[in-house]
């Protein structure tokens, strides 16, 4: 296999891979921001005082966590048009990534918020801070230290999950491998090149996780 490994074709396809690499970065970046916002909203609803909102957030989180992303993606991709909603592939993909990752983000944030001693909340209440102020000034700043490492872990998962968007024919890294496979029939070169690009992102995020953990320990001492 290796003697037939064709680096020249990889070079020839490099522009495609690079543009797809940035597409992957863009899609997962948008998904990450979206899921962060979604996670904060869902977590706020889940631990808030309103029973109904808490119930809704619970159903959302558990149903997302119990079904595969691919099924959710197809659900939106094939389902929204039958409701008369036409969306581009990119927005459908980002929507699915946001909703999927948002449920996990909500759980991560909840674990972070609940890791804060109850006395902190009581002190904030007795200082006269309202719910929003408590979250903004007391709980969230402390929770970030606990939640940052698992959030970066979720970012790694999100980048890998964005590979599934190739199945609704979005041009991203895995799709680039598929295109190369179908045009030249070189699956080895195509998919291994995609894998290398994914590994670049993975090792960067892994390094970021280690770095942030070192920084946080430094800040705590």
């Amino acid at each position, binding site marked *: 296999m290796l003697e037939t490994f064709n680096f020249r074709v990889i070079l020839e396809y490099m522009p495609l891979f690079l543009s797809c690499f940035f597409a992957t970065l863009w899609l997962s970046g948008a998904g990450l921001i979206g899921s962060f916002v979604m996670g904060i909203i869902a977590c706020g609803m889940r631990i808030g005082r309103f029973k109904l909102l808490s119930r809704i957030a619970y159903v959302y989180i558990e149903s997302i966590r119990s079904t595969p992303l691919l*099924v959710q993606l197809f659900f939106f991709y094939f389902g929204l048009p039958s409701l008369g909603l036409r969306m581009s592939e990119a927005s459908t993909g980002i929507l699915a990534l946001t909703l999927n990752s948002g449920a996990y983000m909500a759980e991560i944030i909840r674990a972070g918020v609940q890791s804060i001693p109850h006395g902190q909340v009581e002190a904030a209440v007795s200082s006269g801070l309202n719910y929003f102020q408590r979250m903004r000034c007391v709980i969230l700043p402390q929770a970030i230290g606990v939640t940052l490492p698992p959030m970066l872990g979720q970012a790694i998962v999100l980048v890998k999950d964005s*590979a599934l968007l190739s199945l609704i024919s979005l041009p991203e890294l895995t799709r680039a491998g598929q295109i190369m496979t179908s045009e030249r029939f070189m*699956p080895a070169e195509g998919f291994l090149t995609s894998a290398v690009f994914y590994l670049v992102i*993975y090792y960067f995020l892994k390094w970021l996780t280690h770095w942030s953990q070192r920084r946080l320990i430094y800040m705590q001492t």
Partner: protein
Amino acid sequence: MWGFYIEQLIHSLPFFLKGLWMTIAVSGLSLLAGTVIGFIWGIVRASRSRFAKPLIGAWVDVIRGTPFLVQIFIIFFLFPEIGIQLEAFPAAVIALTNLAACFICEIVAAGILSVPLGQKEAATSTGLNWFQQLRYVIMPQSMRVVLPPLVGQYVLLIKDSSVVSAIGVSDVTRVGWLTVQRIPQGLLVFGLVAVLYFVICYPLIQLSNRLEKRMSVGYTRGKE
């Protein structure tokens, strides 16, 4: 209109159950094999071997850093190039087994390392050999740390098994994809598929949560 489609969907329900059976077969086989391999790798990874440990670590990193979809494409398309013809089903089982082994290996290694070193030293001085130490002292204690994330990992792997539909294994996701070509009601069809996954995964998630609570009860009591 909806009534007609629902009736159609009920008619193709056996088709979906067949797909569900395929999903259970793929993930069941892979989880079984992956658990065995993952425990072996995890024991090696928690040991002090100088050669096997970094090798497994690097392999786990590569598998964790690339999407499962890419892995399954590589296995499905690359094995024929080196002369091994693979059907879609064995390719899917191999890919998912490997993925399972890599994640379970990390969980098991963390569990073993959570057992205090004094336990191992005590076991050594009692005259237990390596296997006996592992079997009677280390493993039973590490299970407390291993079990809850292990069950959670099973859920993730069962969900990941939906990706094997991309190489044509007729699992329940694939059945949904085929059905939606005939019944153009994505919400209904994939709603049904989602319900089928939910029925399997939701109880497992609850089990994982309950295990976590139970195991941590003993742990905090022991600490006090």
